């Protein structure tokens, strides 16, 4: 494996940073009545070389379109794409040096694993043409990297989903791409394989050091393996940051709601005299925030059970998870139903209790503007 990565360096096609400048893709609508669809709206970001980026958003947010723009299957309506210093906006896909792994793997069913992996190499023409032995060697290396050496003579139909996925990755890697793109790489796998394969993708990415962009709608997946997360909604980038930072410091209500399991609890709140009120309960000091109505997001782990805590909630159910307890709550000010708090098992209430009182951890409580849903910053005390 180490050999494989040194190989990249000596070939001079090692990882590249990827820069998107004002990238926009508009799909004109067929009928006059409907507006055009802006799948990708003015993207500006730089992906540092050798990093793994998760492009995260709900279905239809334009993340796959963004990926297709980067690999060249779609032409942008405007804007530019750079790999390193090179402007690749006008280049056809084959000249960009990208490897793409498809959601359904797109392995050619009539070819064996070996033939599938070798296929991209056989496309090289002219001076790039490789001798047969060299091709064989590269195929072997790619197969070793994804650990499928023993399956080389199988057809895709004789393999499990996870194995097919590895073959697809090997096929994308074998031509030593500058950028590796993965489109929903795990969504066709079952839960256990998904965990295993995402670790695998992380390992392969680390070993090869290829700048990798992967698209997913699963926030947990994106959080667990990405260096950076790009959160998208309706073609617009909401936030770009390290996974933990996106979670701890969401820029708006959408990002706050999209990340985290169980999801964040949303309340309607009011700020009066720098104090946040949920219903009648004044729950938290919020210095620097003027009097106004706000959306309040409280992470499940932000609830601290306290005898005399300011927030009173109806106790609906306790779900024991071993280490932690998930408490299902009700509150008149809550928008999300049910509310869910994660507290450590020893603090759990007695089974007969009807109510529970909480204090809130300030760094787990986020305020958002009622109109724009943008984050309202609280001054640190």
């Amino acid at each position: 494996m180490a050999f494989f990565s040194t190989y990249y360096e000596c070939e001079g096609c090692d990882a590249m940073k990827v820069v998107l400048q004002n990238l926009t893709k508009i799909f004109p609508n067929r009928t006059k009545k409907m507006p055009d669809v802006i799948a990708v709206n003015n993207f500006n970001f730089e992906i540092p070389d050798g990093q793994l980026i998760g492009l995260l958003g709900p279905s239809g947010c334009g993340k796959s379109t963004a990926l297709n723009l980067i690999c060249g299957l779609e032409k942008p309506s405007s804007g530019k794409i750079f790999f390193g210093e090179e402007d690749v906006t006008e280049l056809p896909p084959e000249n960009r040096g990208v490897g793409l792994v498809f959601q359904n793997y797109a392995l050619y069913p009539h070819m064996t694993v070996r033939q599938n992996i070798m296929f991209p190499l056989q496309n090289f023409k002219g001076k790039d043409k490789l001798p047969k032995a060299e091709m064989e060697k590269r195929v072997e290396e790619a197969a070793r990297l994804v650990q499928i050496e023993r399956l080389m003579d199988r057809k895709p139909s004789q393999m499990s989903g996870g194995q097919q996925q590895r073959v697809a990755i090997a096929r994308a890697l074998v031509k030593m791409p500058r950028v590796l793109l993965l489109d929903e790489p795990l969504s066709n796998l079952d839960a256990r394989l998904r965990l295993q394969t995402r670790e695998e993708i992380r390992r392969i990415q680390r070993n090869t050091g290829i700048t990798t962009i992967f698209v997913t709608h699963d926030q947990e997946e994106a959080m667990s393996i990405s260096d950076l997360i790009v959160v998208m909604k309706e073609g617009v980038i909401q936030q770009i940051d390290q996974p933990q930072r996106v979670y701890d410091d969401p820029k708006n209500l959408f990002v706050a709601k999209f990340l985290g399991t169980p999801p964040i609890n949303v309340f309607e709140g009011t700020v009066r005299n720098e104090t946040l009120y949920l219903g009648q309960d004044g729950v938290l000091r919020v210095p620097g925030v003027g009097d106004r109505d706000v959306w309040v997001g409280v992470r499940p782990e932000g609830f601290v059970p306290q005898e005399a805590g300011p927030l009173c909630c109806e106790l609906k159910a306790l779900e024991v998870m071993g280490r932690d307890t998930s408490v299902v709550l009700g509150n008149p000010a809550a928008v999300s139903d049910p509310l869910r708090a994660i507290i450590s098992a020893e603090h759990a209430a007695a089974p007969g209790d009807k109510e529970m009182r909480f204090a809130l951890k300030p760094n787990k409580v986020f305020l958002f503007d009622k109109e724009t849903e943008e984050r309202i910053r609280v001054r640190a005390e």
Partner: protein
Amino acid sequence: MDKQNRKAWLYLLPAILFLGVFMIYPLADVLIYSVEENFRSASQTYTGVGLENFSVVLRSPDFLQAVKNTFILVIITVPVSTGIALLISLGLSSIQPLRKLYQTIYFLPYVTNTLAVGLVFMLIFQYDQDGGAGLFAMLLQALGMQPVDFIQGPYWAKITVTCLYTVWVVMPFKILILTSALASVPQSYYNAAKIDGTSKWRTFTRITLPSIAPMIFYLIITGFIGAFKAYSDEVALFGVNLNEAGMNTMVGFIYDKLYSDGGGYPSYASAAALILFAIVLTITVINLMVSKKTVNS
């Protein structure tokens, strides 16, 4: 258990009766007829049992002509029609505007009556001295060439027009099958190939063709069988007296032995039918063997 069995037979009875009367009995009868020597329809008598009928049929010049015609038809029309259908299907699946219109146009011959089509072909290709020049003859004249009567003229002209006609008639079904086969190849294969810089030709030969190979083989096998059974097309073009026109087919020969002027020879017809069956069976088995080998690799 016994009751169960009886019930099962009862349920099967309609199908068995039907198949027995219309399939198994005639098949057995064909076998029997084919070995009854000097069978007379009128008196329902025969003189012996043997392979005499087969040797008579195989020595009959009409039958040999029919075999020759049929083979020429099969060998030319099956590959040509499949090839052209593939080209047209590829064209159809690569255009976006007016695709539906073209698909409809290409499908029209399928729903058109054979005899009507034959009449039109006859009118296009005929040419006789009395001034009955068809469109094609006029075209040749306009180009300064000597026209030929493709309907009553020399053998090569007649067989050419037969092949043309057959190709034209069988094409729509093949186009229909192939366009749907092409549409069922996942777009992601093509995207993957595009990203890897696969040339158009290589994409076609290594991805498209193998993906639709089962359908192509299906068309070739049914094409062979269909062409071996050709008869009505020839009647549409050349009239019922195909032997005189020298354009008879094997099925035509069988029909003639049964019903036409020289008819009343079920033994000869049966022998010819069995010979045809043997040929079709052989070719189909070869086809299946080849297709298994090709589609799997």
